[in-house]
């Protein structure tokens, strides 16, 4: 079997599904962030695979670079917020996290 486009798409599809699984089932904010990174990586694999096999130009790779840049910015802001949340929550009486309520 020669490795073809479909195989790469399967790998990225698996990453996408695992990312969504993590998004739906993980309780910790940093874990959810990691799942989102999996989703972004799966899209990137798609873009590079299409660039190699389907589209025949490097535009997909350029797109992938921009996705990486955006992911970096997102993680930076996310961790800043998480750090602040940790600072605000460090009191003995911990209220229930009600972020996803209603």
């Amino acid at each position, binding site marked *: 079997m020669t*490795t073809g486009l479909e*195989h790469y798409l399967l790998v990225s599809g698996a990453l996408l599904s695992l990312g969504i699984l993590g998004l739906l089932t993980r309780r910790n904010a940093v874990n959810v962030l990691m799942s989102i990174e*999996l989703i972004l990586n799966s899209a990137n694999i798609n873009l590079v695979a299409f660039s190699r096999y389907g589209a025949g130009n490097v535009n997909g790779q*350029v797109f992938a670079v921009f996705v990486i840049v955006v992911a970096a910015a997102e993680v930076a802001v996310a961790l800043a917020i998480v750090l602040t949340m940790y600072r605000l929550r460090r009191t003995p009486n911990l209220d229930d996290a009600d972020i996803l309520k209603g």
Partner: protein
Amino acid sequence: MTAVDYVFWVFAILTVGSAAVVVSARSLIYSAFALLFTFFGVAGLYVLLGADFLAAAQLLIYVGGILVLLLFGVMLTHKIYDLNLRTEKTQLLPGLIIATGLFIIVAAVAFKTQWPQAARLPAPTTHEIGRMFLGEYLLAFEAASVLLLVALIGAAMIVRRKKDA
């Protein structure tokens, strides 16, 4: 199966396997390190696809930047349970069903669609990507720099402790 195919399977299993560990590991540190292997696997796949610049960028930015940042975040907030988003026990089964369904759909898309057949044989990409950054995608390139500036200002402002007037 040629050697290239073998290498593909190695990287594919590394990537997907580590990703599975990321979403299922009990400890956050295990997830973070599994994510490291996922990123490595993806970089390997990029090399197989002939995207040399992107593979290097992946390692530099994702592993060297984002993952290190995530690890810092994990280490600095060591009482991890404080950061929980959900209080109720999240059921694994509905998530698994949705994820499996999604995978089946995506696999169907991958196999049933008639993708265009223009192939680009592996060749050094750095030159061409650079040309595109300063040519066709110039505005996106500059806009990305504004994005990074704003993200920088924002993240620094959020985390800064001192009171300002």
